[in-house]
């Protein structure tokens, strides 16, 4: 998918917005702690303005291209955040198993239809993979993974 966008102006605006988010809370910070970030914020603002000016005078790119399917991109992006958000409710093991199955099913559909038989064939592989990593981290590395409502 190709979108019309002046990338110089977009970068400059993004720099200014990011700088503004950090510029306004600086009043509560002491001199020693703000001296360096303030210098960088000023440099950031100058670069952003230069990019915006360049975008009007001599833009480097007027379009961006999202390769592949934007729908799949958005779904996987949201899927990652849902995975993260649900971990503390359902626990790492259950959430990861659900997320793994869902992602595999969703992405495999690109090539061909995914039948129940095919999913059943993948089940032991997914169970072993998730199980091995879960046990390695909890039992060998002593990492306490979120347990949630179940385990």
């Amino acid at each position: 998918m190709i979108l019309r966008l002046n990338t110089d102006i977009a970068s400059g605006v993004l720099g200014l917005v990011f700088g503004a988010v950090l510029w306004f809370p600086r009043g509560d910070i002491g001199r020693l702690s703000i001296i360096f970030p303030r210098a960088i914020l000023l440099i950031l603002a100058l670069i952003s303005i230069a990019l915006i000016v360049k975008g009007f005078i001599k833009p480097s790119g007027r379009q961006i291209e999202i390769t592949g399917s934007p729908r799949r991109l958005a779904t996987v992006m949201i899927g990652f955040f849902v995975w993260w958000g649900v971990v503390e409710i359902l626990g790492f093991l259950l959430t990861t198993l659900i997320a793994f199955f869902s992602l595999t099913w969703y992405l495999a559909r690109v090539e061909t239809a995914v039948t129940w038989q095919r999913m059943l064939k993948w089940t032991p592989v997914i169970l072993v993979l998730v199980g091995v990593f879960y046990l390695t981290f909890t039992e060998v590395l002593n990492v306490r993974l979120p347990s949630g409502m179940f385990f």
Partner: protein
Amino acid sequence: MDMLLEALTSLLTFESMLTVLIGVSAGLFIGAMPGLTATMALAMLLPFTFSMEALQGLIALGAVYMGSIYGGAFTAILINTPGTPSSIATTFDGYPMARQGRAYEALAAATIASVVGGIVGVIFLLILAPPLARLAVAFGPSEMFWVAMLGLTLVASLSSDSLLKGLLGGCIGILLSTIGVSPVGGESRFTFGYPPLQGGIELIVALIGLFVIPELLTMSAEGRGALPDGGELRKKEVSIAKIARRIFSKPANLIRSCLIGQVIAIIPGAGGNVTSLVAYNEARRFSKEPKSFGKGNVDGVVASESSNNVMVAGSMVPLLTLGIPGAPPDAIILGVLLMHGLRPGLDLFTQSGVLTNGFILSMGLAALMLLPVGLLGGRVIHRVVIRTPYYFLVPSIAMVTILGTFALRNSMLDVGIMLLLGTAGYFLRLIGIQAAPIVLGLILGGIAEQGYVQTLMAAVVDPIPWLRLVRNPLSMVLAGLVVLGAATALVPMWLARKGLLDKVDDNDSGGSS
């Protein structure tokens, strides 16, 4: 000399060899996992060394350290994900090489460079430890500021498309590094009233997010694996001997990278990530084909991997002589030394000379062991990446990155930050802001801030405080290198913009024909 021979004898036993082999293999595996750093590998091994003799424990730690730093190159080359921060620069050319079907060439070059780097580091450590340690003490705040600035000149090299966007990315990275408690003032900054942000943004979290997540999103959108379908190692076409000949026929890159690695390694706090970035930058700057860097130039892989493996032994210089860890994993080794009643300093090279020399030589042995273990391991990991369908690869990598990120500080917030940065990184890449300058800013921001603010604090009574940054000779030399570095990166860009380079190329081709 007697001590060295005695140490060598104690090392050439079946038990020691086995320890090195297991250590290197374990380190390689851990280093290849995104999020699991060399420091974590050593921390995990620590409890096992309690029951070992001092020498065996140190041998195991040295071997794991060497293996994990090298292991980071595998995922950096095969899936564009630096296994350890030291491998960031390896992704720049290693992954493009793998995408071009030259994965074996990149892996073999990384292995040879790592072996050479590891051995050179050990030789440096044996010969130059005391004089270099004295030099390390001379690095005060202003010098550290210039070292960080020297690293930041790399932004110019990493921004071939747009220097301004590269600088913007660098600034964003530096500002991200300022989130949390200030290293000098001790106050919380930019936490927006949310206390968990006081811990700041962990480098590894940002690294995983900015490098891995955009790649996973692209793979999902395009419906493809990390490497092209049917991509083979092409082992038969490019032999290890041929790659070795190519690397050794142009030794300048290797020598320069090893020297850079050694010099930076002895500066406490700099670490392997800075080492490999600076070495990569210099390799590009001195190359006759700088434009080919970032597109699959094997010299980029060699520079990064040789310098970060020199750092393994190199960072032991300040550790063994002054007790100052040159890099975070060294702190764990310091703990083991102290646990066995060994105090860094002259005694370590006299009273406990056999033990110390045995430890140093074992790192050389571990470097040699990288060759067989690495080449075999590389084939196995490559096969896994190639043969796994992308719909298994994406959730598998996502699971490992989530686990690795969480395990750093047992924090789900870190996982959220990783995903947020990764998603932002995907869109930033679309508008031409690459991840590398942001990560560079994040790494060097803290070092630069500490050096800058401490220098200005010391110069509070000076009429022009910032002049303190260039007051002593070492600072002047470093500042000169920064100016020189920026100029050599910017002048070719300026010439190219004016079209002067095209004229030179035309003349060259005209002359040759």
